[in-house]
């Protein structure tokens, strides 16, 4: 579990994060959603320690990560896997060397075992016939998969994913989302995903945090996000054409009166007819 307590961050005069607190639970896909520039990436980088917050604490299973020095951070960092927005693959290495790299650096065991683990991870993300290719030679979706394989190769307890769907077609996006969701449940990982993709939100938002201009505006799950009352959140989620139907449905008398919550069969029949 990761706990954020009153995280603040400014770059110069510009306030990016103002007092963000949250809990990211294990075995769940925790989503941070919000418009571009709302501070999602900065928040994630604070969590993994790439950016130092001005104030506030980040607790990994109760241990204060922000108060540690580089040496103390190392053991926690080895339990963190991260997929960057641009995949951040090492472009001087082939796909399999990329996935081997964390193993070579940190894992015990002989070459054969490491290769087996590497192949396992590449199979897990369903990447075939790309072992010997360089990052420049594969597509965006494949890069993300390699990135995921590299992030999970050391069996992380924490997985951070920054915009897994940016630059991907909807179909590939779904595959990547499902992969992240499955991995999270399979290995009981605390997963944090930054996204502004509503498909992802509906598909895998066990716990959703909506960021607006550096503030946590709303928190909940994909079950209640559609009916959330927050004005800004509504503007954000219904901006997508995909959700116009739902918006119209919501605006119908039936939902306005809030009959759908308490009201039983009567209301249901009305809209159906």
């Amino acid at each position, binding site marked *: 579990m990761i706990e954020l307590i009153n995280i603040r961050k400014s770059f110069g005069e510009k306030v990016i994060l103002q007092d963000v607190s949250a809990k990211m639970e294990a075995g769940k896909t925790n989503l941070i959603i919000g418009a571009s520039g709302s501070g999602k990436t900065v928040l994630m*980088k604070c969590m*993994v*320690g*790439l950016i130092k917050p001005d104030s506030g604490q980040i607790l990994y299973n109760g241990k204060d990560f922000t108060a540690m020095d*580089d*040496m103390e*951070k*190392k*053991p926690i*960092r*080895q339990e*963190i896997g*991260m997929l*960057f*927005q*641009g995949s*951040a*693959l*090492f*472009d001087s290495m082939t796909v399999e060397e990329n996935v081997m790299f*964390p193993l*070579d*650096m*940190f894992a015990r065991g002989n070459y054969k075992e490491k290769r087996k683990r590497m192949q396992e991870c590449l199979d897990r993300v369903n990447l075939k016939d790309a072992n010997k290719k360089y990052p420049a030679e594969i597509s965006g979706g494949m890069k993300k998969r390699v990135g995921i394989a590299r992030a999970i190769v050391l069996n992380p307890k924490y997985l951070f994913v920054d915009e897994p769907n940016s630059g991907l077609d909807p179909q590939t996006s779904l595959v990547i989302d499902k992969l992240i969701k499955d991995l999270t449940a399979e290995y009981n990982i605390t997963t944090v995903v930054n996204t502004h993709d509503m498909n992802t939100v509906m598909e895998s938002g066990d716990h959703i945090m909506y960021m607006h201009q550096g503030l946590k505006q709303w928190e909940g799950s994909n079950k209640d996000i559609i009916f959330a009352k927050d004005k800004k959140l509504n503007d954000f989620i219904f901006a997508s054409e995909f959700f116009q139907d739902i918006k119209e449905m919501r605006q119908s008398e039936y939902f306005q009166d809030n009959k759908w919550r308490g009201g039983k069969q009567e209301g249901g029949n009305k809209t159906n007819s």
Partner: protein
Amino acid sequence: MEFKFFYHFGRFILMIKGMFSRPENMRMYWKEFMHQCTDIGVGSLGIVFIISLFLGAVTTVQTAYQLVAGFIPKSTIAQIVRDTLILELAPTMVCIVLGGVVGSKIASELGNMRISEQIDAQEIMGINTKAYLIGPKILAALITIPCLVVIAAFLGIWGGLQAGMLSGIISSEEYMKGLRAAFDGYNVFVMLSKAFTYSFIISSIPAYYGYNVTGGALEIGRASTKAVVVSCILILFTDYLLAAMLL
């Protein structure tokens, strides 16, 4: 171009200090070190070969042109060629050229890794990227570049002989005689001191600029230009310092 000397100097020192930590995995560091030795050392052999031959040749021809007085023996030409090459041309000229070749390579490699977040990715894995990415480069430079300078001195002297014979300025016997006359081993010490100092400059300054790139791809080019300019100026500056101190 802003000139924030103390700011950069302080950050540079911090970077060097940050390099010293226990390697996460000695084998990987060794592999990276060998890789850098090949890249920096073997990769620069060709250019060193060419420039040192021509430096020797030109020095011979021009020294002969300047020594017009008849009473000076021809072998003096070889002596002068030998000493200028060892004292100045082999270390300084070669390192200035290498500063361009190796420096821009180091700066753009690290700059690219920074911009595409590859450095961040390693940092998150728990790797001290200063130690892993910069350390082996500086160490490889400190070992291979002085070797290149020694090779350059030999090749330059040989090139001088070839040029001398080709243009009929000096015979090979006279040249050899000159080479053996009044040889001072201390000059070799000066050459190596220069070579080591320059190697450090050539590798660490571009590493500093590359590692700290911020912004976009355009900044990578700017950082490597800046790195090469600053290392060249520093080489010439320390050249003067070392000459004043050691000679």
